[in-house]
């Protein structure tokens, strides 16, 4: 079974995000890392390929400046190869343009049975890329999976719902978006890290994918940021140290609010 996993390479979330006042996009300076949310997809893909008795896991990523740091992490986990789309004309791309690039990159990667994504990225969290990729490919999408199995040319998932979960099944090929916690991602081994250095990364430009420049980047986004403002701050109130009687203060507060 051949599986493509979409992996986003993002600025380290531990350093707080900032918007560039000039370009009005997220600042992406310095080295990018593998989005944690996508580590679940990579692990899931490796396990599914294993359970199916073979097949390759291919990474798909769109990132600025030919960034490969995050890809290397995922290759070190065990993925076989990657397609990386990096092109200055992609700057400003929205979710739809991103999905167009990813769908084309998946086609470029060869015959796939399954495409895995996270449900939303850590830095952008538009949360629509998986469905958009599926629609572009003309495939079913099974979204918000917390458990996945494949057998007999079909994929079956537990799909998160408001009330619990649904069992959803579709024939392959299909797109599945996975929630955090679907599996426990492995840590790359030393051997894996060494091996990753020589794994193939196929670099593609927008023109190589048969997309026009007008479909991506600022032009393709067809939207304009009109303002960036600080949100109204909430004022902190009283703060007390518990000396064995803090619960009384809480009770008094709840009484004052007429909750009890």
């Amino acid at each position, binding site marked *: 079974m051949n599986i493509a996993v979409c992996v986003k390479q993002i600025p380290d979330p531990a350093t707080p995000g900032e918007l560039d006042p000039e370009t009005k996009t997220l600042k992406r300076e310095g080295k990018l890392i593998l989005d944690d949310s996508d580590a679940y997809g990579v692990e899931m893909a490796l396990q599914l390929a294993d359970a199916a008795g073979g097949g390759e896991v291919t990474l798909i990523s769109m990132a600025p400046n030919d960034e490969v740091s995050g890809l290397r992490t995922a290759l070190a986990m065990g993925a076989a190869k990657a397609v990386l789309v990096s092109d200055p004309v992609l700057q400003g791309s929205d979710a739809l343009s991103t999905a167009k690039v990813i769908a084309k990159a998946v086609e470029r990667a060869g015959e796939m049975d399954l495409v895995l994504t996270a449900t939303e990225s850590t830095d952008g969290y538009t949360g629509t890329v998986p469905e*958009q990729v599926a629609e572009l490919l003309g495939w079913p999408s099974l979204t918000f999976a917390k458990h996945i199995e494949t057998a007999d040319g079909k994929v079956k998932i537990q799909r998160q719902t408001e*009330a619990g979960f649904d069992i959803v099944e579709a024939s392959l090929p299909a797109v599945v978006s996975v929630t955090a916690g679907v599996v426990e991602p492995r840590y790359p081994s030393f051997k894996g890290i060494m091996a990753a250095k020589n794994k193939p990364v196929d670099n593609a430009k927008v023109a190589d994918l048969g997309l026009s420049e007008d479909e991506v980047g600022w032009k393709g986004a067809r939207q304009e940021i009109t303002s960036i403002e600080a949100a109204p701050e909430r004022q902190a109130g009283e703060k007390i140290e518990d000396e064995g009687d803090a*619960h009384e203060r809480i009770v008094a507060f709840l009484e004052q609010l007429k909750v009890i």
Partner: protein
Amino acid sequence: MPLPKVWVYAEGEDGKATSATLELLTKAREIGDTVEAVYSGADADTIAPQLGEYGATKVHSVDHGSSLSGVIGSALLAKLVADEQPDLILFAQSYDGRDAMGRLSVKLDRPVLTNGNGVEVDGDTVAVSTAVFGGNTIVTTAFAGEKPYLAGIRPKSFAPEPSGGGAAEVVKVDSVDAGRAAEAQVLDHHVEEQEGPKLEDADVVVSGGRGLGSAEAYEPLVEELAKVLKGASGASRAIVDAGWVPYSKQVGQTGKTVKPKVYIAIGISGATQHMVGMKGSDNIIAINKDPEAPIFSVSDLGVVGDASKVVPKLIEALKAKT
């Protein structure tokens, strides 16, 4: 000037429209002349009176059968858009809403602005505002392309208010062509038992985080306190990911947004991604042993203390009162 026609992608649950749907209808009335709903489900007739009560004059519907409702919903929307010419379509940022808006954006080749918590119409300009960086910054983005504009809005962004309208007229479409996407079939539903009010609707929400120390502490501290206050219990993502409680309890950016009268955070540090889901609460009480915990920057009453000591005494005291 309002927009001529605003559509709301309606969702239902147990024969009722979801609260997010009613919130969107309320907003749609404010910014649109004509408000209509589009619904993927077999029970359009059942929810039509409620959709009408909140301002929809019509509900366009299709039965999605055992296919995913958002997938079929997007095909219905795509089929109707050319004839009906809506200016703006509002979706709830929900599981099915996301399926529907994502697919529709491709079908129509239109961008979709997601995670909004406000919609503004100013002359010809329609803009969606979104809270980023844990709600510290509000970014407003205007649509620049062709209509219809598509926007995904987080639940609880607007207060639902009935307009007193009569039942919406139901216009059924027999079937739509969703292609291979329709092959995804729902085989079974699993409902996780839940006691008390729903997290999104409760007046009091008690949430626990990693500071509880262990999964075993959740029931006697968080659930018990929620029970005596007739509220709902929630959680930080840290303990959902750790498997202590189900995902349905998660509050925050990737979980639920709650706006109760009182939110009680126990052993929760106050990461921006958590706060974006609870900062809109009327009152916030935080219990955390670290006096520097960020949660105290938004709390009306902050208690610096050990949850395993404070909470049992609090539960005792509250029980003694009732």
